């Protein structure tokens, strides 16, 4: 079965500390993986996708097929990074047909 697991409901770090939000997936095939972010009172928006291999707002994520993981990392957290983060898996060739994890709430303290 296709599934996305985010083991942490809440992650709290201090400003300037490194951040790693964990994501593991189960998928039979070549997955397309994404990280979505929802800031307070804002809509859900795409942060990054694994095929782009880009860094957005200092965040990076590497697809590890051996460990079936797609962890999100940032070396130095900022207060404005506080938000809800969702890892998602695309199936069927449609980037909007997504299977989401339950999300991790990141809280960056001053």
């Amino acid at each position, binding site marked *: 079965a296709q599934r996305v697991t985010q083991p942490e409901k809440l992650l709290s770090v201090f400003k300037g500390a490194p951040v790693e939000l964990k994501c593991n997936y189960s998928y039979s095939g070549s997955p397309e993986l994404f990280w979505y972010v929802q800031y307070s009172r804002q809509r859900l928006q795409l942060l990054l996708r694994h095929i782009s291999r880009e860094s957005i707002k200092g965040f990076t994520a590497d697809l590890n097929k051996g460990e079936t993981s797609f962890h999100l990392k940032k070396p130095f957290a900022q207060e404005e990074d506080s938000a809800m983060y969702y890892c998602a898996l695309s199936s069927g060739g*449609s*980037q909007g*047909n997504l299977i989401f994890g339950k999300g991790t709430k990141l809280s960056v303290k001053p």
Partner: protein
Amino acid sequence: EAGVAQSPRYKIIEKRQSVAFWCNPISGHATLYWYQQILGQGPKLLIQFQNNGVVDDSQLPKDRFSAERLKGVDSTLKIQPAKLEDSAVYLCASSLVRAAEAFFGQGTRLTVV
């Protein structure tokens, strides 16, 4: 560019009543999605449209949920009759084509009492 518009933002109804949500996607976007997000969970896809045709409705509870996208633009999602467990945020998203990034609306928060 204008984003995905949804209305109403909030709705409270009693169980067994009916409710409808409306979505206006980004202009020109052929693909439209409805998601259900229950508190503490990630969004779950209910139905996907390509223009005015249904691509995937495998997770739509068809005994009580229905959706349509007449003329391939706006879409409505209806629940009839509602149950307590339907309390959730209903998100609409659209993308230019199926293989493109999906943009989400603000959602409609439904409370069934």
